């Protein structure tokens, strides 16, 4: 009797514990209020336009208002350091850009680390491509490389900033072809392209969507992607020319560290649903973006892969 009393007590305790434990793990309904979508670049830029495109669809699938907010500064670093310091309750998410979130923490203290950000999804990429003006003497990537070998450091390549995708692409290109270029950094894509069209630099590593706009004036020598880019179907990839460079700017969405799994899943589903919408993919393509639909796990794996590649290159810059 005594024993059964105790066992009853234990059973009650255990089941209570289980219940409360279950209760704790129980998913709180999400979202119950408006969700903030933080854009870390200027309004009107690619990240902002994508957020604005997604906003109405997100509101529909989440059933709550989505507020697009801006935290601009430090090439995105300011917004991302705010992201990793905010509550992991799913009510603040931020657009993320690769390679920015990998390269910035490698360069210096920026207030966040790459692995602090939980990637939810990646939904678009702009492969980089090497381009010259139509009037330029270089017709193919081989001619370009040959010319660079004749006069090292004489040919200038314009890009956006240092420790950026454009800079890294130039360095990888130099390393793989044994050439040396004069890399001229600009403060963003707009001044970069303006200087390029004005002939102030000989070539650029540009984002595909920027280059598509000027396809009448420029000649794209090679695209740094796995496959040919639909905007320039005639242009070979670097890989086809035997140079193993795949470089792109990828855009996605991230959450603060320790965000519960069910929130990540819920947002992942919402974003992937939009990313897989054929009408939206068609729009993206028209603007020069490659549509993507990578979920949380796949995005994380991709970030880890790229981190490995960048580690060695950054070592080269820093020494």
């Amino acid at each position, binding site marked *: 009797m005594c024993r059964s009393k105790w066992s009853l007590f234990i059973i009650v305790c255990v089941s209570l514990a289980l219940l409360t434990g279950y209760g704790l793990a129980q998913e709180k309904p999400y979202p119950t209020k408006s969700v903030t979508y933080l854009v870390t670049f200027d309004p009107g830029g690619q990240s*902002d336009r994508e957020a604005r495109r997604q906003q109405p669809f997100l509101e529909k699938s989440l059933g709550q208002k989505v507020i697009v907010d801006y935290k601009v*500064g430090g090439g995105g*670093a300011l917004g991302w350091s705010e992201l990793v310091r905010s509550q992991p309750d799913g009510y603040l998410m931020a657009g993320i850009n690769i390679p920015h979130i990998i390269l910035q923490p490698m*360069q210096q203290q920026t207030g966040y680390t790459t692995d602090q950000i939980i990637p939810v999804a990646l939904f678009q990429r702009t492969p980089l491509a090497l381009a010259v003006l139509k009037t330029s003497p270089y017709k193919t990537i081989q001619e370009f490389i040959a010319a660079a070998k004749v006069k090292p450091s004489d040919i200038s390549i314009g890009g956006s900033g*240092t420790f950026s995708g454009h800079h890294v692409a130039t360095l990888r290109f130099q390393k793989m072809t044994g050439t040396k270029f004069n890399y001229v950094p600009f403060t963003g894509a*707009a001044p970069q392209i303006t200087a390029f069209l*004005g002939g*102030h630099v000989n070539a650029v590593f540009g984002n595909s969507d920027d280059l598509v706009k000027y396809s009448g004036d420029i000649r794209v020598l090679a695209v740094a992607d796995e496959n040919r880019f639909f905007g320039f179907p005639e242009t070979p990839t670097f890989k086809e020319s035997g140079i193993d460079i795949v470089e792109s700017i990828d855009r996605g969405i991230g959450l603060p560290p320790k965000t519960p799994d069910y929130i990540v899943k819920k947002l992942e589903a919402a974003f992937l649903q939009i990313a897989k919408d054929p009408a939206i993919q068609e729009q993206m393509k028209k603007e020069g973006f490659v549509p993507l639909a990578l979920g949380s796990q796949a995005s994380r794996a991709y970030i880890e892969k790229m981190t490995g590649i960048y580690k060695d290159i950054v070592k080269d810059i820093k020494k």
Partner: protein
Amino acid sequence: MEAWSSLMGGFAAAISPYNLMFALIGSIAGTLVGVLPGLGPTAAIAMLLPLASHLDPAPAIIMMAAIYYGAMYGGSTTSVLVNIPGEASSVPTAMEGYQLNLQGRGGPALGISAIASFAAGTMGVIGLTFFAPVLARTALAFGPPEYFALTFLGVSLVVSLSGRDLGKGLLSALVGLLTAVIGLDPLTGVTRLTFGSMELMAGIDFVPIIMGLFAISEILVNAEKETKCILEAKRIEWLPTWQDIKDTWAATIRSGVIGFLAGLIPGCSPAVTSFMVYDLEKRFSKHPEKFGHGAIDAVAAVEGSNNATASGGFVPLLAFGIPSGPALAVLLGGFLMYGLQPGPRLMQEQPALLWTIIASMYIGNVMLLVLNLPLVGLWARMALIPFPILGPIIAVCTLIGAYSLRHSFFDLWISLLFGVIGYLMRKFEFPVAPMVLATVLAKLMETSYMQSLVMSKGSPLIFFTRPISAAFILLTLLSVASGIWLRRQAKVKQVELEESDS
């Protein structure tokens, strides 16, 4: 005359009630965000983007463009009335317009700035209509060395903006440059002078600085003086007279031409243009002694150049899809939203749309004039509100405006800090304008200098071997030399005056 017939076609489309309505909405919204300090067309256009996606491209872009040039009309209001330039390009307006307001001539100053905005803005649109294809390539002629030479010329304006004491003006400019360096270096991304602070990493924006130097310090000064009403003049004029228009028309036309040409250069900030125009008017004025004490032709010139620059900025935007500033970048986003890529191809594929937009800009400028002139009397009467009531309203509007820029409370603390600094600068007689100009120019100056050296592999000769850049540097040297000479002349005169007085 091909442009002429295309333009007439554009007018036929732009005059439809539907398009007119959106031009009007844009004009009203633009005036509103222009009047509110800190808020600018960028935020307003960005905000309307999702709304605009329900419209056809023509009315949507007509509306967004109207917000952009409409904001230039409102910019002078707070500068003249309460000494708060909403953005850097209105700083010279505040320097002269506020003095006029104190003399009871706030109404004429506002009226003249509306008329100058209209006249110069329309000149800019005429330039856009007829000379865009010829002039578009100037946008591309400017590479890093040319930009550096341009900023060099800009900084040399400090000499004439320094008031009586050149040394203090230079120190003020140095502090401004140093403030602008804080944050990430725009080229290398290296953090500078941030002392580990995340907020400083984003840099110090110049709008909160201007808000502090002008608005907050104005409130502090008036609080200590227990001002009853900022307007002490006995005789108050509400509207400009014919004499005012006669005095300013030449300055308006000059500034219209210069403003339009400067608008063609995408990296040239409108603030540089307005300071340059101000300096030119001061030099060629028949009454240079009036400058700093309420010169109405300076108000006309500065406000006119702002609007002409806004019209000029459409040339690189429509010809190449190159935006000259954040507001036009958002407007470009509007084009892209419809799958329209401004550039030569759009000119061939959608000429009707482009001409409708250009035609709507003529109509929009007329609307803005009609909208703003009757408001002048109303605004000018605002200066009659007692200071204890006006002061907190100014504070609330400027601080919320400064907040809205980056959604950052840190910016508000910066505003207060520079409010106290501005107050001390008034007491110790340091001129404020050089500091504003320096903070605006610093980034472009440094980055273009470094880029030029990268291009030339370290040789500074690049600034002298390129014709445009060499011309600007020569112009700078001439301007500094003549500025110092004029200053000396003025000093001699002053000494003579003082001696004859005694």
